């Protein structure tokens, strides 16, 4: 068994929180620059240029690119040969979130109770999805998820007879209904299959993939491209003020389903599509 100290996990998480919120990924920058070539709306172009300038300022001055530094969401792949030393994995991650959000001057946006809530003051607790895999590594993937885009998310228990066309219609309608709210240009995460809760989780997980990556199954890769084209015909455009660039990408994740069930979930990310990972 390989031992990993909790203090190393905490340090890695602290750094991920700050890095993800200050430094947007190259995948987002490349996609925004590419969209400048196809965007027809002058206002739309100006908005994309402002976003690129904003992301540059955030990087240079080491400040958050967006004031909504999100709910801290983690997908953790823990090797079965890993032993966590001197503490608890979830506690170590939450301690890293606390340190990262405090020392990085990130906004604390978490209420301790959905109804009676007051701010927890350090942006904990994090949402942690743990997966056990083969090997002796600990992979921590992090995405700070903003409220504006998270609110534009939906899950639907569809009928198997709805087929892939039904799913496509659900996704495109959902994006149209969301309009200007999730801060377009957006990234659209889609889960298909599994159970109710797993489907939603797949939609979220798909947002951790880099923009431009395709589902390994050519069938779903093609659906991703078709959906992207369809969404960009909607005219919503940057910030919902009209234009060609509504989405930068569509990601689909799938899982086997029950013969009677056909769940589909959409989870939207804003243009500040932050995601970073660390491997210990």
């Amino acid at each position, binding site marked *: 068994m390989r031992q990993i100290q909790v203090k190393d996990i905490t340090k890695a998480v602290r750094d991920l929180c700050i890095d993800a919120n200050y430094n947007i990924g190259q995948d987002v920058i490349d996609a925004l620059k590419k969209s400048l070539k196809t965007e027809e709306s002058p206002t739309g172009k*100006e*908005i994309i240029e*402002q976003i690129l300038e904003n992301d540059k300022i955030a990087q240079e001055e080491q*400040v958050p690119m967006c004031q909504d530094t999100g709910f801290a969401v983690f997908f953790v792949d823990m090797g079965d040969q890993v032993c966590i030393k001197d503490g608890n994995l979830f506690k170590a991650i939450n301690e890293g979130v606390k340190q990262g959000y405090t020392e990085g001057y990130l906004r604390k*946006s978490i209420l301790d109770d959905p109804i009676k809530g007051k701010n927890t003051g350090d942006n904990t607790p994090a949402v942690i999805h743990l997966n056990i895999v083969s090997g002796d590594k600990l992979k921590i993937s992090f995405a700070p998820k903003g409220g504006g885009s998270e609110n534009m998310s939906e899950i639907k228990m569809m009928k198997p007879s709805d087929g892939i066309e039904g799913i496509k219609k659900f996704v495109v309608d959902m994006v149209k209904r969301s*309009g*200007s*709210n999730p801060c377009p240009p957006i990234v659209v995460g889609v889960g298909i299959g599994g159970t109710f809760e797993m489907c939603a989780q797949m939609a979220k997980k798909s947002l951790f993939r880099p923009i431009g990556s395709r589902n390994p199954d050519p069938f779903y890769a093609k659906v991703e491209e078709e959906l992207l084209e369809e969404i960009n015909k909607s005219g919503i455009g940057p910030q919902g003020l009209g234009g060609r660039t509504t989405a930068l990408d569509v990601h689909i994740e799938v899982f086997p389903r029950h013969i009677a069930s056909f769940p589909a979930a959409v989870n939207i990310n804003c243009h500040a599509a932050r995601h970073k990972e660390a491997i210990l």
Partner: protein
Amino acid sequence: MAEGKKITTPLTDEVVKSLKIGDKILISGPIYTGRDQAHKKMVDLLEKGEKLPFDVKGQLIYYVGPSPAKPGKVIGSAGPTTSGRMNKYAPILLKAGSKGMIGKGEMGGEVPEALKKHTGVYLATVGGAAALVAKSVVANELVAWPELGAEAVSKLTVKDFPAIVVQDSYGGNLYVEGVKKYQRA
């Protein structure tokens, strides 16, 4: 940096009437921050016939909850939050004398009617462009409810704060017009 027509707060009806959807503007002067919880408190005060913690006449309310300021900085990142959550509150503040709102995303409910009735304007600034927007904030002074943290009401003094007129006092709505223009079958 962005270009546009310069306006100074507090706004008069004449200035508001001169603003049409699609206009790029640069705002200078004081603006007041407030979002979900601060609006609930402000509207509660108005409904009880009490005074707001600041003179709202002619002022713009900015829907924002900034990130904490780093040492030596006036403010942290300060982009707009989704305005639709304030649909219920905005008409009440317009009635009380406010001349408009700054945020992101379409405003519905009674808002378009209230903009016409009280000669108000809704301005959008780019959502997520929070580091850029923060550069136009030159002063930041707490006005009320510090216990709300990022949601407290502050008076920001801005210089050439970039915004776009998205819903005007004539019922114009760029979210509708813009999308219509670029929609394809």
